[in-house]
């Protein structure tokens, strides 16, 4: 009798706690690459504006190298990570069963920067030029290989030199004719050095983006196959909440910049800039209630950039401009979706580089659009 009573009491105690547990947000860490940076603003927005919390997640962010992100997701030590598309193909060729669930960057972020006086409008003119690259790995190397292939060139036609992640300095010292860079960020830095007269004879830089030549799959959210099979509902909630945070960042970059302040120490915190951004974020919220089109929103971002440029110097504004430049790489009518053609183009590029072994990579298993909610 006393046993039965004890079971009933324990049962009664467990019922409310189970109910509470369902209400408690689920701790989830998302593995990012690089270091905290304004380019990860959608994730900061997701946390600060409560998108993840509304979906039932208490998200924390960690920064690692791409291979570490991918391996930890593959072995189930983390559920979500962000890597570039070629990493997914390479990893799958080495038995890592990860699935790319959301294409965050709709345009490949890599390109070639050079002195505009060099007039490289035809990439065939790269022949014989010294080209700097962080190393013979990663998105930069894949992007350059695709660019060269598109121009009917090979690596042997140029003088390729490893420069680490020092493109602005190495370029401005004149050690290379062109450099493979992330187009949202480094050309801006080089242009600022040129404007200050610290970039040799360079007056203006020009950029040829990989995306302008070939559509390669880019950075996106990955999950493990095991998670996809075990809890696709949770994946759906997280992916959808990220899509909302991304859309909110694209629509209101000033608010996203302010949300990023808690995560990125290097962001400019000039009082007058923050005040300007606060009022811009408020005005943009009102504008959003009018349900503007994508083109109207792009115009509003351009207007904001012009207004701020008239009030603040380039250094103060640089991180905000990087955010605006990056938004151009994310924005699309339908966020998150990736298509087979871009995967195939990346696969072919990696094969040309000799990075894929004999066993075929089934591209259909590498990505899934099942979590993409159709845009209204």
């Amino acid at each position, binding site marked *: 009798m006393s046993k039965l009573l004890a079971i009933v009491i324990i049962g009664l105690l467990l019922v409310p706690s189970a109910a509470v547990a369902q209400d408690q947000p689920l701790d989830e860490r998302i593995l990012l690459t690089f270091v905290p940076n304004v380019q990860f603003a959608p994730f900061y927005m997701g946390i600060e504006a409560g998108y993840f919390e509304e979906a039932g997640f208490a998200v924390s962010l960690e920064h690692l190298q*791409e291979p570490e992100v991918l*391996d930890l997701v593959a072995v189930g030590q983390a559920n979500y990570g962000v890597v570039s598309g070629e*990493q997914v193909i390479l990893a799958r060729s*080495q038995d890592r069963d990860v699935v790319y669930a959301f294409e965050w960057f709709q345009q490949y972020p890599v390109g070639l920067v050079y002195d505009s006086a060099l007039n490289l409008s035809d990439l065939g003119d790269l022949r014989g030029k010294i080209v700097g690259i962080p190393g013979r*790995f990663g998105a930069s190397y894949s992007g350059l290989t695709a660019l060269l292939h598109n121009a009917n060139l090979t690596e042997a036609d140029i003088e390729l030199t*490893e420069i*680490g992640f*020092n493109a602005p300095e190495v370029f401005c010292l004149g050690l290379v004719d062109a450099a493979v860079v992330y187009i949202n960020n480094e050309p801006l830095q080089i242009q600022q050095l040129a404007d200050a007269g610290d970039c040799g004879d360079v007056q203006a830089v020009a950029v040829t983006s990989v995306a302008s030549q070939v559509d390669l799959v880019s950075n996106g959210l990955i999950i493990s196959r095991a998670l996809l099979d075990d809890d696709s509902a949770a994946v759906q909630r997280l992916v959808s909440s990220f899509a909302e945070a991304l859309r909110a960042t694209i629509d209101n970059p000033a608010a996203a910049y302010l949300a990023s302040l808690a995560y990125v120490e290097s962001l400019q915190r000039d009082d007058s800039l923050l005040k300007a951004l606060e009022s811009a974020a408020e005005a943009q919220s009102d504008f959003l209630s009018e349900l503007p089109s994508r083109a109207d929103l792009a115009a509003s971002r351009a207007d904001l950039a012009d207004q701020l440029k008239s009030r603040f110097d380039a250094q103060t504004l640089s991180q905000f401009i990087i955010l605006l430049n990056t938004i151009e790489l994310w924005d699309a009518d339908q966020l998150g979706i990736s298509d087979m053609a871009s995967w195939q183009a990346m696969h072919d590029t990696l094969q040309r580089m000799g*990075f894929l072994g004999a066993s075929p990579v089934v591209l259909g298993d590498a990505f899934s659009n099942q979590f993409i909610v159709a845009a209204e």
Partner: protein
Amino acid sequence: MQPQRYLGKPPARSRRKWLRMLAPLGTILLLIALWQLIVSLELISPILLPSPGAVASALSNALADGSLLKHASTTLEEMLFGLCIGVSFGLALGYSIAKAPLLESLLSPLIVAFQSTPIVAYAPLLVIWFGTGLTGKIVTTAIIVFFPTLVNTIAGIRGLEPSLTDLFRSLRASRWQTFRHLELPAALPIILAGLKTSSTLAVIGAVVGEFVSARYGLGALVIAARSRYDTPLVIVSALTMTTLALALYSLVAYIEWRILAWRRRPRT
């Protein structure tokens, strides 16, 4: 009748010597067995820890296609050049500081500040300053090996017994005679101990430089292998770095053994 020592089992002293020589091999075999056991029991995913067999296969492939030799020889070249330059500067400056305390007052804050900053912090700058070729890596190596040599040279020269210095002075020995017959022999054990430390650090300097930017070298091989998810090749690269460091250490230890042979001779 044959003396006892020529019969039956080898003498205990000889057996102990053999055991001592084989002990490291036993440790390595034990580690490999443990590693294989962990993999076989799937305690760690093979994605994170490949089997010894997979690593052996990666080693065999890298040796067969010549890539390992190319990368290892580049790293060794950087290590040797860096070691020569760093040790030369360390010896010269260490001796000067030991003899001129004013120089120590002038330079020590700078040297300590430079040494206490992790080399990875300024390695990217060295690439910008010295270019993306071998020079940047050699300078990185030279910097990392410089400090142990410097400190041990100062300690070795300053550790001389004052009575011996007084003796040489009373015999009116020239500066060169004092250096050649007193300071150098007395300080050598400590200087060579520093050189042994430097030789193991040389590989770190070279690889840090290669991590920043390189086409060849074991650091570049690690990055390339990691970016292709070839974990066995990463382990092969790391083991090759260890082998290079051990080989260089053993070489310095052998040189030490030969140079300091006089210390082992019984005094008559």
